[in-house]
């Protein structure tokens, strides 16, 4: 819960083998996030796939896995290509912000109408998955099925291998690591501590004794009081006061600006690793394009 306690990086990057990617044609401007954070609002997000790129990558992966499963006779294997762009990976919630209008309806919570965007598609989850199907999917316990060889790691790893073909190695978690590091650095910055103080003064005037936005967001009174009917009036009232005070002091814009200044410093310090991510993304996206055009990289 504590944005202040974001740990500094320990040495040694954690290498993760999963790879995907995309062309980085993100907006260069760092527009104020406000209620609708855009992909380019974090400098480091340019090294993370856009929703459009994620849609293409997800669809290509789904197509490959489904095609592979079909070859083994599992034509009803439950998977789906993306029908539209997924929601952004980061929203204004990164800055503990929702619009006052949303706060008045949902408090700090999620709009129930958008809840499915954050969870697994329930209609794709079946009550029973045949063990043979699972084994072909993941390469568990089977080397062949119905006379056909099951690749190591099954259809999933085979699909990932196709999409990863000729992609240079890259640590795709690095942008997340650096974003969180920048947030930790910003939290200690005098520009942010004075901003928090201004917010605390504002919300004190609204009748709340919170010292920092995290205390309001994480107030232990809120979540246990929620029911299927929604959040409590008390939570809504506090959330509205919280967001209006954030608007009054320019909280999101100023916090994002300070975080971005640290992100830019970190980008300069990790330029080689981040450029490797871009090359990886570009190669991956080319492969996804080929798959979606009906070919194989």
């Amino acid at each position, binding site marked *: *819960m*504590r944005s202040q*306690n*974001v*740990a500094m990086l*320990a040495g*040694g990057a*954690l*290498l*993760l*083998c*999963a790879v995907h990617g995309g062309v980085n044609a993100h907006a260069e401007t760092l527009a104020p996030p406000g209620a609708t954070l855009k992909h380019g609002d974090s400098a480091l997000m340019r090294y*993370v796939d856009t929703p459009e790129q*994620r849609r293409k*990558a*997800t669809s290509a*992966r*789904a197509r490959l*896995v489904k095609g592979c499963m079909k070859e083994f006779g599992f034509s009803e294997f439950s*998977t*789906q290509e993306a029908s539209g762009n997924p*929601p952004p*990976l*980061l929203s204004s*919630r*990164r800055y*503990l912000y929702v619009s006052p209008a949303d706060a008045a309806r949902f408090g*700090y*919570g999620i709009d*129930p109408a958008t809840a499915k965007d*954050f*969870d*697994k*598609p*329930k209609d794709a*989850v*079946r*009550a*029973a*998955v045949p*063990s043979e199907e*699972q084994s072909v*999917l*993941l390469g*568990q316990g089977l080397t062949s099925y119905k006379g056909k060889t099951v690749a190591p790691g099954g259809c*999933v*790893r085979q699909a*990932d291998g196709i999409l990863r073909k000729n992609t240079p190695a890259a640590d*795709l978690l690095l942008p*997340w*690591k650096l974003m*969180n590091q920048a*947030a930790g650095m910003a939290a200690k910055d005098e520009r942010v501590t004075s901003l928090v103080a201004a917010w605390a003064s504002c919300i004190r005037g609204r009748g709340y004794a919170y010292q920092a936005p*995290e205390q309001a*967001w*994480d107030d*232990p009174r809120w*979540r246990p009081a929620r*029911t*299927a009917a929604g959040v409590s009036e008390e939570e809504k009232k506090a959330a509205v006061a919280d967001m209006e005070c954030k608007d009054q002091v320019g909280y999101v814009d100023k916090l994002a600006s300070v975080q971005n200044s640290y992100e830019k410093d970190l980008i300069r310090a990790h330029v080689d690793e981040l450029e490797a991510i871009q090359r990886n993304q570009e190669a991956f996206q080319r492969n996804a394009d080929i798959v979606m055009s009906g070919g194989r990289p």
Partner: protein
Amino acid sequence: MTANRTDNAWTLNGLIRKGMMKRRGRTRILIPTVVSALLASAITISSPATPAWADENDGWCTDRELCIFEHWYAGGGRRDYFNGDLNYTNDTFWYWGGGPGPAPSNAIVNDRASSASNGDSQCKALLHEHADFAGSALLIWYRSGSSGLMVNDLGQYGMNDTISSNSWTDCI
């Protein structure tokens, strides 16, 4: 989302009551105690038949589940999630050792996770610093093949003892 919380005994849009499903088998992710310094993967042993959502919050890290661990390298207590979860403050760890299976506890998961594994080959997992999917985040990629994708030290990502909710994205 609230109605879907399986730790409140509801699953799959509230249609299926946890505990009503007969367990026919499970795929367990065995957690290595000593792992490569740079990369570790959780190994799976298979006898899959039961969907993971039937087993969410039972101390077994199965296919399609995010597993949250109390300590580095999958140490200490664990909690398995099939669905997204808005708030870890009412979630507790399971502990292994001294018995035939995992034992429940009163140890709260919120702000106490130090490592995590995504056992889902069809969705990426997002870990969030605050409840309701807020604050800093970390995206954990798909499980690929037989191994869950393991992050052995969340501290390297500025998220040690901070995670309070999780969501899923980019599902196929």
